[in-house]
């Protein structure tokens, strides 16, 4: 089994958890502290995705991080929609569907 395969399940679980943390935070008021927290979560997700070689997720996470740091919530929402699909695709690949 390749290293990518070995860690994909753990990555998908972690990425899904981080995604839900982010969307829950965005459901509340958009304070600067909240957006900084979202940016930090996306940054960590991007690093994990880079290590796994999930470059589409890494790229989206980076764009989302920038949007959060630059206080562009509409752009952030758009990136998160794409991110959800990309994480789902990793999950499908993991389960061989």
């Amino acid at each position: 089994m390749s290293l990518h395969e070995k860690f994909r399940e753990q990555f998908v679980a972690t990425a899904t958890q981080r995604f839900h943390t982010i969307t829950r935070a965005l459901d509340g008021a958009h304070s600067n502290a909240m957006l900084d927290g979202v940016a930090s979560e996306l940054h960590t997700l991007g690093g994990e995705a880079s290590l796994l070689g999930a470059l589409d997720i890494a790229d989206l996470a980076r764009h989302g991080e920038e949007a959060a740091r630059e206080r562009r919530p509409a752009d952030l929402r758009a990136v998160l929609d794409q991110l959800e699909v990309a994480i789902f695709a990793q999950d499908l690949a993991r389960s061989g569907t």
Partner: protein
Amino acid sequence: MKPKKRVVIVDDSSLARTILREIIQADGDIEVVGEAQNGYEAVGLVDALKPDLVTMDIDMPGPSGIDTIGWIMEKAPTPILVITSEQLGGHSSLGFQAIQRGAMDFMPKPSISDEQAVAHLRRQVRTLSELPAFVHVSADDGEPAPATRVARATGIVAIASGVGGPRALSRVLRRLPPDFPCPVAIAQHMPPRFAVAFARYLESITPLPVRVVGEQPTPIAPGVFVCDSTSHLVVKSASDLVTVAAHKDYPSKPSADLLFGSSADHFGGSVIAVVLSGVGSDGSRGLGRVIDAGGLAVVERPETAIPADMPKAASLAWPDARTMPVELIGDLLSSVVTDASAKTTAPPADSSDRLAIADD
């Protein structure tokens, strides 16, 4: 049997630590002896375990990796390799900030699917863990030497700088006066696409203008010239620097050998070539070309270079090269360049003249 290298991983992501552990331990000669998820944990762990090397993330909750590097270098000096998903390149100078705080080198987080990248990470861990830890020295080396007799620009200063080189480089450039009349071309070994960040780092330590050379010829003028490590920095003519994407004899980019050789081709005896800290032997071959052309060869004293492979190789190959502590190299450059500019309108007749100037 050789003892395993002992490594501590600092990263706030549990998954990242797990994957890095797997990558680092893959060849069996390196052992991850501890993991820390933030800067506070890291300092205590490093102090307790005394590892051979620390890998450090930058963006973590609480103290950043940059702050943590400073604390570790104060409390338990240890070679540190920054491995991060931060935007180290582009306009960010975070990697070089980490080096200023005491890190040895930096690299982006590698993908586990990229065999070359993970092999490179393991090589870096092995190389840097062999190096002696040292207490971070304040970047303040005093005021630059006064430019007592600055004359018109003459010749070129070419510098070879490898891993550990940015720190040495900062100590050299800080000593150059704002009106240093000579161009300074630097072949700095670093990850690809860091040229802009490297230039910003240099701008933070020298008043001299810093330019990133690209494929189009860049006029040679007083100031500092660098290039990205996706290409070689070469002297195209006595008036232009340029980058070239590849050279059959020099696979590693940028090649100091190529920079030195092309400098000698176009500037003859008015070249000063300097070899600073680094791994490997880049610079040694080109130094011979500079010496043959009558230029001045300067090598950082291996005893104080970290790592010392490049200076050692250069001094072994060219025992006549002038070897000196890095803190004196900037003053030597100021002295030689301003004197040479004032005294000569043409390259000196032979190398002994130039060496005599250096010995003044």
